[in-house]
């Protein structure tokens, strides 16, 4: 209402409306109880006020039905709020299957975004309107937290693990990006903005900012440079399991457990391979901890994901490249 004061945050994502409706409901419930108690307190204090210190109140010890009433009713209301909140929470943390993948790393006092096309951005993020976007990110040093108030989403960036948030922007414009977990001197400087653009303008932006190779090709080059393909042969005869068409499927582990092959498992298998060895294989793989920056690990993850796309095409492309002898490090 007032030009200078914004009293309510902008609503720029599909889920923001759900969060706001839940917020209105809880505000209504809280306001109701606050008013009821305040009115009773003021009314009783005024009505039964006395100046005579020797006056004595009525002899009332309590009433079980009343106590039960104001225990059970608030609990039932709480259950309603809990269930509704849980459903909104699940929607916030459950990305649809087809999302635009973006990788990010938080490190002391900046966010670095990596688009699949190889574009890199610092503290700025360009996203298309109307498409679900999933950001998979981690931290390279201390805890951070990626927070988009306009999309009502937030998740901590924890070193050693991937976190992810997703949103579907439904409003054009520029919105805030904050770091919400205290991370030191310039914690308040680790901010930026997200630009929601028309899909056409977004494509045009992608074209204009094409960095070097796409993430997948960078991953493929790393896959070759680090001689991963000597063990991870695509037809499965190597010492390591074939990675073709592995992403998203279930993997049986040597110790009998089972795990979904997702970004987290691929990352963990690169950095600490001995923890979850695939059934039927020996823990021969050396650790790449400290040899690879988070960005390169993400490139490799993206490459492993791309193997899923068309394993046949990938296999024969790899075959042709193997045919032409290239010097492997």
């Amino acid at each position, binding site marked *: 209402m007032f030009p200078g004061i914004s009293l309510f945050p902008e609503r720029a994502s599909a889920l923001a409306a759900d969060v706001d409706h839940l917020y209105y409901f809880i505000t209504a419930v809280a306001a109701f109880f606050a008013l009821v108690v305040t009115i009773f307190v003021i009314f009783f204090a005024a009505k039964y006020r006395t100046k005579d210190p020797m006056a004595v109140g009525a002899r009332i010890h309590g009433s079980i039905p009343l106590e039960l009433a104001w225990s059970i009713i608030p609990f039932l209301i709480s259950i309603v709020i809990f269930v509704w909140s849980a459903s909104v929470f699940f929607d916030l943390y459950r990305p649809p299957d087809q999302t635009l993948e973006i990788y990010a790393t938080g490190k002391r006092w900046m966010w670095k975004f990596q688009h699949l096309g190889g574009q890199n951005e610092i503290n700025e993020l360009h996203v298309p309107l109307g498409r679900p976007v999933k950001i998979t990110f981690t931290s390279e040093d201390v805890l951070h937290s990626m927070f988009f108030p306009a999309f009502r989403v937030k998740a901590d960036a924890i070193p050693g693990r991937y976190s992810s948030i997703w949103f579907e922007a439904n409003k054009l414009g520029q919105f805030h990006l904050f770091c919400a977990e205290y991370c030191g001197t310039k914690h308040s400087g680790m901010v930026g903005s997200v630009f929601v653009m028309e899909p056409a303008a977004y494509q045009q932006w992608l074209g204009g900012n094409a960095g070097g190779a796409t993430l997948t090709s960078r991953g493929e080059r790393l896959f070759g440079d680090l001689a991963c393909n000597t063990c991870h042969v695509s037809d499965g005869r190597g010492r390591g399991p074939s990675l073709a068409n592995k992403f998203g499927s279930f993997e049986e582990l040597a*110790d009998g457990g089972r795990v979904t092959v997702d970004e987290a498992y691929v990352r963990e298998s690169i950095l600490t391979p*001995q923890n979850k060895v695939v059934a039927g294989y020996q*823990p021969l793989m*050396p650790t790449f901890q400290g040899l690879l920056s988070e960005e390169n690990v993400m490139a490799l993850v993206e490459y492993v994901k791309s193997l899923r796309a068309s394993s046949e095409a990938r296999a024969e492309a790899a075959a042709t490249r193997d045919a032409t002898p290239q010097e492997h490090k």
Partner: protein
Amino acid sequence: MAEALTAHGDHGGPHAHHPDLQHHFDTLEQQHEAATLGMWLFLITEVLFFGGLFLAYMLYRVWYPVAWAEASRELDITLGAFNTAVLIGSSLTMAMGVRAAQTGKQRATVVWILLTMALGLVFLIVKYFEYKEKFEHHHVPGVNFMFEGPQAGPAQIYFSLYFLMTGLHATHMIIGFFIMAVIAWMAHKKRFTPEWYTPVEISGLYWHFVDIVWIFLFPLLYLVDRAGHFA
């Protein structure tokens, strides 16, 4: 803790007929129950104090069973078992010491307490050798930690917990050792009577607690997967 209870009731209230009854208590019975209750409450805090480390232990054992198996095999099981026997023995001598104080046998109390101190010392000496062996093998977490094989990271967590848990336990042993010395000295001075032996009982409770902590530490740290299931 103990010194609060050993002091005399310095100024006798109107009804303080017994020298050991403190002014703000009505009967010796009330004072004894208050003291033991206070000690049990203190032991609750100790249970939760060690509980934090047991939480970390449980989590990382579930996350890194192979590392736990390999690292646990570095420990010398005979020394561990011997130490457990020593500590259970010291628990026995402590219980006998409390019993002697209850029945008013001053000399026997002193002997049993001294035996408990001796066994405690044996435990600490064995611990010293175990720690020395860890330093030699560079198994002490920190900058020059060395552990061959891929499990070096989680193994360092194992040894961090090993030193935290056994170090904390050893510190409690040392504190217990000095408390025993005070109790032995007081028993030698014939301070205790069948009506008033609370400090001995309190120290006994503390010592038994320290023994219980080791009863858990021994299997959790030394006996992880000796049968080679994981590694």
